[in-house]
């Protein structure tokens, strides 16, 4: 599918979606609450068939967090980036997509570890890289600790 066709199909399913085509891939920006239905549609609908989640990360924009999902379809060879905005930075939470793509399980562990995003319905949400007793989430912009030397 071309980007135009993807856009038309997505806007049909989720009218609130915002599109951004300035980058390499087609970006779809949605609210965090409507993430899971859209992701399920992108995975299951024959025309989309996004069967490969090749990157899952998060960006801290200070006033909100943005979850970023890179999806690829191996059958149709099209790519899309889904961004989900999380407005609550104090207690951020979003639905886990591990039921759709198994690989999300570890990626979400990583995002939880470094950004502190709480993934709902995640089977085993834990710290992946840092020690179990680490305090805070280091990739958040407001993170400080006693070892850190600010430039």
């Amino acid at each position, binding site marked *: 599918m071309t980007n135009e066709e993807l856009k038309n199909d997505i806007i049909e399913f989720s009218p609130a979606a915002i599109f951004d085509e300035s980058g390499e891939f087609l970006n779809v920006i949605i609210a965090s609450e409507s993430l899971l239905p859209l992701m399920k549609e992108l995975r299951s609908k024959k025309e989309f068939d996004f069967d490969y989640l090749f990157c899952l990360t998060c960006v801290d924009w200070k006033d909100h967090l943005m979850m970023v999902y890179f999806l690829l379809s191996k059958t149709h060879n099209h790519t899309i980036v889904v961004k989900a905005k999380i407005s609550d930075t104090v207690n951020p939470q979003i639905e886990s997509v591990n039921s759709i793509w198994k690989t999300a399980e570890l990626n979400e562990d990583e995002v939880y570890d470094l950004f502190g995003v709480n993934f709902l319905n995640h089977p085993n949400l834990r710290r992946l890289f840092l*020690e179990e007793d680490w305090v805070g989430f*280091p990739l958040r912009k407001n993170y400080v*600790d006693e*070892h*850190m*030397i*600010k430039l």
Partner: protein
Amino acid sequence: MEEGGIKMDLNKGVSTNKMIFPGQVHETPDGGFLITKLDEVINWARANSLWPLIFGTSCCAIEMMSAADAKYDWSRFGFEVARATPRQADLIIVSGTIVMKMAPVLKRLYDQMPDPKYVIAMGACTISGGPFFYNTYSVVKGVDHIIPVDVYIPGCPPRPEALLHSMITLQEKIKNEAYFRKAKT
């Protein structure tokens, strides 16, 4: 009797080795000889057979491997017996960034090495944290926070020649220390 150098006529016709033998040689009536300054002899042997521990955490380790290969060939100076276990190593070359999670592992490896043991801090990361000095949550800012360091090599990463130079510097240090006193402490 010549002090500080072997009396060459002892080896006349046998050896063309120019290496100066440390200590004194005393001839005895039956043709054998005694040596003094045991420290210097032991140190001479120790300094020329340092066994490094294989320990590389990032790009400096690539330079370290390069120093071991045929082009730079650290076995010219007696370093070729790199050991994969700390219990057989005399020297640990900390080549690469040490993060908080690695720090206890490094300390443990150092503790497992038998005395006397030496540490070379290779590269900017191990000296001070280097490029990761500011705004980092994970990097240890200088490996000397964890273990005592004998020789520091600046560079990011240092060239293999710099590593060889540091190892020769370490040999100088070993040759000048009192072995038995060191072993007791």
